[in-house]
């Protein structure tokens, strides 16, 4: 029971955490582009767009960082067996994530949230670049840790725990780099969809004077979707070729050559991810080519508002393939999930599972309402920036 509940809790907390993370990781890159254009060309429209989308970034960033703390603490509370066996190897990427990435993004996000209207455009560009570097590095380190669990290199199992042989092998684990590229592209495509959906809503129902600006951001969204959705299958294919060698059991699940409940789920999830990826290319291409049609077509604009769940589904199914495909291993080929759990009274895990579910439900409602309110408020021209500043 402890194992079942701990896994349920981990699945719940990571899935919830990952509602916010890909959006912030992708969106900040678009914000950097807006700020760069503003800084180099002095075009004030981009500053307004940057301020507007920054508000949406910041709301989701806050929810992302606080739900991330739960992840760190869970390794000790629920997965002590795993932590003790893996500390030598898993600890270093986690520490690097904290000191190289988290400090950078958190320090500068504070400035961005409360002081962005009081600093020069050069300082603005530096601040958002630091946040973008921070979020990217953060993804790098956590995927390095995950990559090790999927394809353990650079360390050996001595019978009771993993012992580090070569840290550079862990960092340059090819598995992690395939994942990082694929994962980052998917985050960017997601933010492309979000930007396009928000712009569509504004074109449909927003203020008349904002519409020129949102046509501009819609164009950015469409191009973002097109470029990244073409790159995603390329990176995915390379990843798959590599998996053929190192995780044959996962490939067998994807191809459906083995049967069973879990195996079928993996196969279906893979199918959904690939189909969605293909659809994204078509959408991106259509919108970019027929952009003039999109600008006047209310049907297309409405459609894009309802498309936002699709990239989320693609990302979730992708991770389902990755994580379920590795079962029953917590470290592929070395340690099984059931060996990694803590020795905790089951009542305490019930406490955390139930309270987290309630708490996260409240948080989700808050995030949804806040983001929606902010989206609908639109751009305030009087101050040239966000409405409440």
């Amino acid at each position, binding site marked *: 029971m402890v194992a079942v509940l701990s896994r349920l809790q981990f699945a719940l907390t990571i899935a919830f955490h990952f509602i916010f993370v890909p959006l912030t990781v992708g969106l900040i890159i678009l914000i950097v582009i807006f700020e760069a254009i503003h800084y180099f060309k002095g075009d004030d429209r981009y500053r307004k767009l940057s301020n507007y989308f920054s508000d949406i970034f910041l709301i989701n960033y806050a929810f992302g960082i606080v739900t991330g703390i739960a992840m760190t603490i869970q390794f000790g509370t629920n997965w002590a067996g795993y932590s003790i066996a*893996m*500390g030598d190897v898993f*600890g270093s990427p986690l*520490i690097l994530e904290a*000191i190289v990435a*988290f400090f950078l993004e958190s320090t500068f996000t504070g400035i961005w949230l409360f002081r962005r209207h009081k600093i020069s455009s050069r300082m603005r560009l530096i601040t958002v670049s630091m946040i973008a570097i921070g979020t990217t590095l953060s993804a790098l380190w956590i995927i390095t840790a995950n990559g090790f669990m999927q394809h353990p290199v650079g360390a050996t199992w001595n019978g009771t725990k993993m012992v*580090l042989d070569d840290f550079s092998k862990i960092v340059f684990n090819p598995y992690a780099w395939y994942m990082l590229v694929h994962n980052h592209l998917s985050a960017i495509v997601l933010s492309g969809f979000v930007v396009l959906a928000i712009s569509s809503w504004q074109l449909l129902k927003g203020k008349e004077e904002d519409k020129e600006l949102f046509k501009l951001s819609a164009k950015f969204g469409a191009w973002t979707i097109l470029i990244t959705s073409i790159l995603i299958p390329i990176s995915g294919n390379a990843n798959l070729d590599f998996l053929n060698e190192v995780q044959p059991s996962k490939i067998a699940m994807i191809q459906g050559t083995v049967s069973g409940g879990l195996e079928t789920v993996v196969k279906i999830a893979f199918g959904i991810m690939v189909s969605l990826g293909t659809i994204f290319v078509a959408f991106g291409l259509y919108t970019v080519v027929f952009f003039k049609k999109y600008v006047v077509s209310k049907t297309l604009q409405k459609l894009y508002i309802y498309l936002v769940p699709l990239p989320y589904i693609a990302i979730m199914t992708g991770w389902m393939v990755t994580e379920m495909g590795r079962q029953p291993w917590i470290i592929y080929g070395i340690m099984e999930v059931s060996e990694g759990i803590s020795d905790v009274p089951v009542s305490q895990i019930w406490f*955390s599972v139930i309270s987290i579910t309630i708490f996260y439900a409240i*948080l989700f409602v808050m995030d949804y309402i806040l983001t929606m*309110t902010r989206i609908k408020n639109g751009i305030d021209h009087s101050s040239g920036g966000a409405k409440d500043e």
Partner: protein
Amino acid sequence: MSNEILATIAFNVIAFSWMVYLVQELFIAGSSAMNMAVVKSEGERRQIQVATGIHWDGIEVWLIAAIALTFGAFPLAFGTVFTYYYVVLFLLVYALIGRGVSIEVIYKIDSKRWLKSVVLAWTISSTLILFILGVFITNTFLGFPYDANGEMSKSFVSAFNVTSISGGLLFVALGLIAGSGWINLTTEGELGLRANNFVKKFGVIYAVPILILLVFMGYNNSEASLFIGELFTAVPLMFVLPIFTITFALITTYCGYKGQTTRMFNGALLTMVFFLITGFMGSFPYIVPSYIAVENGITIFDAMAASKSLSVILIAIAIFYPIIIGYQTWKYITFTKKVKFNDE
């Protein structure tokens, strides 16, 4: 370098990270915790919010760093302590989530009805952060019911004992004092004065020395007492550390009474610094001390990761800690200006 030296350095780095975190959390959480008692308008609340909001997520990473370092450098201690404190740590996580979310939500919210409950959440979570951290840290120095079989012989409820509750209250009291000092330093108008009157009127400043004595007496009664630990026994001069702690606590009380705000603020921070140094020095080399029998405890040498892993970690720390401290100091210097009433 030998393994012992690596483990000792790692232990010091963890102690340092906790110190940097807790000292800053004192005034950030402290000024947030007192917001309902001292503001008279939403404009004033916003002043406190800007003064704390700009820093909260930057400093919270020090906590994550301290936890991740314990994980990476002393995996056995991380697994043992965190499993034992299961419920306590989840409460801490909820408080941290509540604080972070409410700071940002209040800032972005329009609805009056929501505002009221979010402000309450901000106040409660900030107070809880201080209290739970106090309980957690005080217990770490006091020791665990860790028996000869390598198991905790009591449930997590024993984490709430007289000593640790005094420790929790001590953190809250120091937080409120430092918080009032921070409000005074960073906001314009009469808000700062009201904050100082608050800690004086309700006797918060007088509580600090008493609570410290209670905690130290609790330590002294324990089987794993800090004051008969390895370093205190070997170097009796170390007793200046607890004496400094008490002295700074008394200075804090005196300056608070006299209305010397900046000195009171510094006094509270220094009390925390010396309280932590006393604790970490006293418990060395135990990272999971046992109050059942001293020899049951887990030392840093029992719990340490392999020397190769420790070297990687310490090299990363040596490179990045100075950089982090550099840009965070820059941020304090650049952005700690008095927040005006109609700031944003």
